[in-house]
């Protein structure tokens, strides 16, 4: 089919091996940023922008000519490893690079060199943030493109190690303690995943997702492998009740690190779980209901904790637990009639939560910077009101709650529609309850922002617009705007969707 070969009719970039490049580029940049600390900021931002451009080009290519497979080393599966890009993967690539860019711009200011007054701990943060972020980016991109369970395992390890590095960046004892728990949890998770890979290989002699997906019969060994892998991923995604490590790890990290951990890292393992669930394994109804119930538990438990805690950062971290639970409801819905709609909703919720939560953590970081604390009790007593950061927080909250026209609204709406089409009223009820609970806990800080009656003395608003507030604000605007501009992402998601008969692309 020579007329459909993109290389004959499009510019040179259409022939490049972009899937390999989006993994290799951040890797080389990570080494460069480690080698040349003085140029790390430029390398980091430049590489993120380049990866973003490459991801967008890849997405455009996908929209034009369908899903892609590149066989690494020229070896076809099952012997070799293939990188597979479908719409879901491309959407994650673009979102990751985009959010990384905005968080990176925020970080380039908050970790700026301060010259002689710089404390050793600050210098460490400034020097090590960039290699760690670039390694994280490489790990995430490798994960999105992977179509091989053992390859997923190694990508998860890169992700886990760089995430722990980011979590302990501040060097404070509380962060280190949380980071160690995070490392242990993550290691246990990946070992459980590896044990699942063990059983898969022992039973089928295959590790590539294409061969595994072609197996129809769920033998006991395959079920065991699926359960073990999902259990490992559930630890890494912090699905209730395996979320024990998350609140401390996310709330004790520095603001840009928290933003990346909460927006992107937990989504990496969730992405793998969703892919294994939808693409590879035959539907297992009982297991899906169990995961859905755990998700419901996460919504209730995470929300209740978010209503009880007294630190703003901890509230945002517990909100992640609840939101992860909401997304995990999709596992109970995929084999029903509205499965595809629910799946689209879950993917959109992943994207919306990534944008909103990174905006929120950055905004909280700015608020804490202004006030010198992040205590919820004292918010409404403060005469100082960091206006733009509060606006960013509120906008992000709009998307998290799911008010129209935000991206969170669209995701939640699609998930609800899927559940209603399947007559799954239990899950509809859980989603409505979750929305009410999220309003309840997010109103705690927002009402603190808006109350002035307990302030002693005149209220001070920062008069000048600080450039540092632009990045959380930008992310919050993205979290809203993605709801309005949903046509392109949704049509991208349809490329190579697991719910339609796959078309073979050479």
């Amino acid at each position, binding site marked *: 089919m020579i007329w459909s070969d993109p290389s004959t009719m499009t510019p040179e970039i259409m022939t490049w091996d972009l899937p390999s490049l989006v993994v290799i580029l951040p890797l080389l940049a990570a080494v460069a940023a480690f080698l040349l600390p003085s140029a790390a900021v430029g390398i980091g931002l430049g590489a993120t922008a380049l990866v973003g451009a490459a991801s967008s080009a890849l997405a455009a290519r996908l929209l034009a000519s369908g899903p892609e497979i590149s066989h690494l080393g020229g070896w076809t599966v099952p012997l070799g490893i293939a990188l597979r890009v479908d719409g879901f993967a491309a959407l994650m690539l673009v979102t990751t690079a985009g959010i990384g860019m905005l968080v990176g711009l925020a970080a380039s200011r908050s970790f700026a060199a301060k010259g002689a007054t710089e404390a050793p701990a600050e210098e460490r943060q400034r020097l090590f943030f960039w290699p760690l972020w670039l390694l994280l980016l490489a790990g995430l991109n490798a994960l999105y493109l992977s179509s091989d369970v053992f390859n997923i395992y190694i990508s998860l390890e890169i992700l886990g190690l760089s995430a722990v590095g980011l979590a*302990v960046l501040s060097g404070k004892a509380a962060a280190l303690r949380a980071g160690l728990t995070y*490392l242990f949890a993550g290691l246990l998770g990946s070992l459980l995943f*590896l*044990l699942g890979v*063990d059983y898969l*290989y022992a039973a089928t002699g295959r590790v590539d997702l294409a061969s595994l997906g072609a197996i129809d019969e769920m033998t006991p060994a395959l079920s065991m492998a699926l359960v073990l892998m999902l259990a490992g991923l559930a630890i890494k995604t912090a699905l209730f009740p395996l979320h024990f490590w998350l609140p401390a790890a996310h709330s004790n990290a520095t603001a840009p690190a928290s933003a990346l951990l909460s927006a992107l890292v937990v989504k990496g393992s969730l992405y793998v779980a969703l892919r294994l669930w939808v693409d590879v394994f035959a539907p297992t109804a009982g297991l899906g209901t169990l995961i859905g119930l755990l998700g419901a538990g996460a919504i209730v438990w995470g929300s209740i904790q978010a209503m009880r805690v007294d630190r703003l950062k901890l509230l945002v971290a517990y909100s992640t637990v609840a939101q992860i639970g909401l997304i995990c409801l999709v596992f109970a819905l995929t084999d029903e009639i509205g499965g595809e709609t629910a799946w689209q909703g879950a993917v959109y919720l992943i994207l919306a939560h990534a944008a909103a939560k990174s905006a929120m953590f950055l905004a909280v970081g700015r608020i804490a910077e202004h006030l010198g604390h992040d205590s919820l009790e004292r918010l409404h007593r403060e005469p100082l009101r960091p206006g733009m950061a509060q606006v960013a927080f509120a906008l992000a909250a709009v998307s998290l709650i799911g008010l129209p026209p935000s991206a969170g609204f669209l995701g939640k709406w699609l998930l609800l529609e899927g559940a209603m089409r399947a007559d799954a009223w239990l899950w509809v009820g859980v989603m409505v309850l979750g929305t009410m609970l999220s309003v309840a806990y997010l109103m705690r800080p927002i009402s603190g922002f808006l109350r002035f009656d307990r302030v002693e003395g005149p209220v001070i608003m920062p008069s000048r617009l600080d450039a540092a507030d632009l990045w959380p604000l930008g992310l919050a605007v993205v979290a809203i705007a993605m709801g309005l501009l949903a046509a392109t992402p949704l049509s991208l998601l349809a490329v190579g969707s697991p719910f339609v008969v796959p078309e073979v692309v050479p």
Partner: protein
Amino acid sequence: MSTALLYSFGGILLIGVALHRLVLTTDLLRRVVALNVFAAGIASLLIAAAYRGPEAAADPVPHAFVLTGIVVLVSTTAAALALIRRLDDLERSVDHDT
């Protein structure tokens, strides 16, 4: 009973012992060792799956997996131990201050 199955059971027992101690211990160093024993059990399962009798050559793919796994594990262990040492230094300096 085949040799491979025998060694697989050995690997499963290692996993059991490791998980049991991992859950019950609160000591950080012991937790690291337990995770390493857990990994040794998983690796033993793979090596046993690769064994195809005394005459046939063993399956090299699981061997490559285990080699990779060993390097990944020593890396993660080194990170955990560096964290433990750093935490210990910090706690020590707090002890001295008060």
